[in-house]
C-alpha cells in the first residue's frame, strides 16, 4: 500500500508528456490533418524551453517559448501541406528529422547544464489531504495543465460551435468548404495548436521529467503519442486513459523488476506495447463506433475547386 502512492506519482510523470502531445495531435487529426512530426515538434519544445529557462530563469517565458517552438515547427508543416499540398505523411516524417537535427545544433552548448526542475505547486487545502493530497495535488503546473486540457478539448470539440466546425472540416472538407467555412485556415490553426501542445510535452521532458538537455531526449515519445491518438479513437477521455495506461505499465514493469521477478527484462520492456495492443483490440470490438469517430478526411489532401 505504501508503495502505491509514490508509484502513482511516477506514472503521472511518465504519462504527462504523452498526454500533451497526443491531445494536440488529436485536435490536428480531428481537422483532417495527419501530422507525423510530433517527435520533431516535441524535441524543439524541449530544447528551446530549456534554453529559455537557462537564460531568463522564468518558467512562464520557458513555457511560452516551448509552445512557440512547437507551433513554429507546426507552421512549417502547415505551410507545406496546406499551401504547397505536400503529402502529409512524409512531410511529418521529414519534420521529425528536421527537429532532431536542429535541436541538436541549438543544444550544443546546453549539454551538461543543470536545471532544478519546475517548482511544485501545492494546491491549498487539497494538498494537505492524506494520501490523495500527496498523489494528486502536489505537482508542477504542467501536470495540472495537461489534465485541464483534457476537459477543455473535450468541451471545445463537443460543446462549442467552433469545435463542431473543426470536426466538420475533418469529416468532409468539401462539404465544409461548400458551406463557406475557411477549411485551410481552420486546419492551419488546428496544426498550430497540435504543435504548441507537442512543444509543451517536450518542455515537460526537459524542464520537469528529467530537467536537463541531451540530444534525442524525447526518445520516441512522439511516436507513442501518435499511437495513443489512434488508441483513443480520437476521444480526449480515452487519450487520457491511453497515456496513463502506457505510462502506468512502463512504471509497473520497472517496479516488478525491482521486486526481483524472474522474467527477462526485454520481455518486461515489451509489456507497455503489448498491453496497448491488447486493450485496443478489446475496445475496438464495436467497429461502427470507431468509424464514426475517426475524421473521415484524415490524411486526404484538400484541393478546393473554384
Amino acid at each position, binding site marked *: 500500500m505504501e*508503495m502505491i502512492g*509514490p*508509484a502513482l*506519482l*511516477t506514472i503521472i*510523470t*511518465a504519462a504527462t*508528456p504523452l498526454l500533451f502531445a497526443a491531445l494536440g495531435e488529436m485536435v490536428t487529426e480531428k481537422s483532417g490533418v495527419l501530422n507525423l512530426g510530433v517527435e520533431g515538434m516535441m524535441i524543439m519544445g524541449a530544447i528551446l524551453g530549456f534554453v529559455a529557462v537557462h537564460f531568463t530563469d522564468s518558467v512562464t517565458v520557458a513555457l511560452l517559448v516551448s509552445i512557440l517552438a512547437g507551433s513554429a515547427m507546426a507552421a512549417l508543416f502547415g505551410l507545406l501541406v496546406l499551401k504547397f499540398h505536400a503529402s502529409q505523411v512524409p512531410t511529418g516524417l521529414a519534420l521529425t528529422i528536421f527537429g532532431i537535427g536542429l535541436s*541538436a545544433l541549438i*543544444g*550544443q552548448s546546453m*549539454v*551538461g*547544464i*543543470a536545471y532544478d*526542475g519546475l517548482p511544485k505547486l501545492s494546491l491549498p487545502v487539497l494538498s494537505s489531504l492524506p494520501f490523495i493530497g500527496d498523489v494528486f495535488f502536489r505537482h508542477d503546473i504542467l501536470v495540472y495543465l495537461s489534465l485541464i486540457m483534457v476537459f477543455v478539448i473535450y468541451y471545445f470539440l463537443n460543446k462549442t460551435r467552433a469545435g463542431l466546425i473543426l470536426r466538420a472540416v475533418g469529416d468532409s472538407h468539401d462539404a465544409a468548404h461548400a458551406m463557406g467555412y475557411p477549411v485551410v485556415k481552420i486546419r492551419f490553426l488546428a496544426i498550430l495548436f497540435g504543435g504548441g501542445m507537442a512543444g509543451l510535452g517536450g518542455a515537460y*521532458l526537459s524542464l520537469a*521529467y*528529467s*530537467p*536537463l538537455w*541531451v*540530444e*534525442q*531526449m524525447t*526518445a520516441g*515519445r512522439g511516436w507513442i503519442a501518435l499511437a495513443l491518438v489512434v488508441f483513443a479513437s480520437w476521444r480526449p477521455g480515452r487519450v487520457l486513459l491511453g497515456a496513463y495506461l502506457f505510462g502506468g505499465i*512502463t*512504471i509497473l514493469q*520497472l*517496479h516488478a*523488476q*525491482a*521486486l*526481483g521477478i*524472474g522474467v*527477462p*527484462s*526485454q520481455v*518486461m*520492456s515489451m509489456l507497455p506495447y503489448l498491453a496497448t495492443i491488447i486493450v485496443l483490440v478489446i475496445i475496438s470490438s464495436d467497429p461502427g463506433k470507431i468509424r464514426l469517430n475517426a475524421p473521415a478526411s484524415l490524411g486526404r489532401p484538400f484541393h478546393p475547386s473554384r
Partner: protein
Amino acid sequence: MFKKTLISLILAAGLAFGASASAETKVGFVYVGPIGDHGWSYQHDQGRLAVEKELGVKTSYVENVPEGADAERVIRQLASSGHNLIFTTSFGFMNPTVKVAKQFPNVKFEHATGYKRADNVATYAARFYEGRAIIGTIAGKMTKTNVVGYIASFPIPEVIRGINSFTLAMKKVNPEAKIKVVWVNTWFDPGKESDAAKALIDQGCDILTQHTDSPAPLQVAESRGVYAFGQASDMKAFAPNAQLTSIVDNWNDYYVAQTKAVMDGTWKSMDTWGGLKDKMVEMAPYGDAVPADVRAMADAVKNGILDGSFHPFQGPIKNQQGELVVKEGEVLSDKELVGMNWYVEGVEGSIPK
C-alpha cells in the same frame, strides 16, 4: 624548355607538399551515439579534443553511427581518406573494424571494449569495475534502509561485472545490505532512467547507482533526498548534494599516448585494460555527505587497487547458488572477467542464456 622545367618543378613541389601532407598524422573517431549525449560518446569526444589540443594533430569524427551495416563503410571511409589512426569506440564496431583493418594494413586501428586483435588492430577498455568496488563500499556504509538500487542498461558482461563488483564490495562492509537491479534496456533515455530511479526509491532504496549514461537518476536522487553515484563524468552539477562520487571515464591520456606512438612510429597492437592506476578510470571528489570514516574506507579500497594489494574479484566469492567459485587467496583472471555472465551471491534475477 624553360617552361617545361618550371612546370615540372611546380609539379615536384606539389608532389612534395602532397607527400608531406599525407605523412601528417590524422586521427579518426567513430562514435555510436551523438556527442551531445553527455555520456559515453561525449567522454570519447573529450579525448579527441585532448588529442587536438596537446598534439596539434588533425582529427575527424563521425557520430551517431549505427552498429550494423553502416559502421564498416564509415570506418573504411576514414581509413581511405588519410587517417593513420582510427578509434572505433563501441563494442558493435568490432567485426567491421577488423574487416577494414585487413584492407588497410598501414592504418592503425584501436577498438574499444572488444576482444579481436590484429597486427594493426589494438583493443582497449577500462576497468570500471574497480570504481564500482569503491562506490559499493561507500554504498554499503551509507545505506540506512539497507536497500541499494542499481539502474542497468543491457545484460552484457561489462554491466554484469559492475553489478558483481559493486555487490561484493557492499556486502563486505555491510552483509545486511541488499541490491535491487532494474534494467531499462537503453543506454540513453533520461526519462526512462529517471522512472527507474523513482521506482527504486519507492521500493526503499536510499542509494542509487547506474550503468546508463544520463544524469537524470542523480537529479531524481537530489530531489528525493537520497544519495547516488555519477557515471561517465563528474555529474556534481546535476546533484550537488546527492552525488557521493562518480566513476569518470578518462580516455584523454590514452588517446594522446596512442596518437603519439603512431607519430613516433612506436605504435604496437596491444590489449590495454586500464584502470585506476592508468587513470583511465578516475573517481570524482567525494560529496560533502560522505563522512570521514567512509572516505577512509573507500580510500583504502582505492589504494589497495592502486598498489595491487586488493582486487575487487579476490576470493572467496560465491555465486548466486551459493557455490564457491573463487577460492580464498585467488582472484578471477582477466579472461574470466571479460566474459562474465553469472551473478555473485546476493544479486537477484537471472541473465539470459
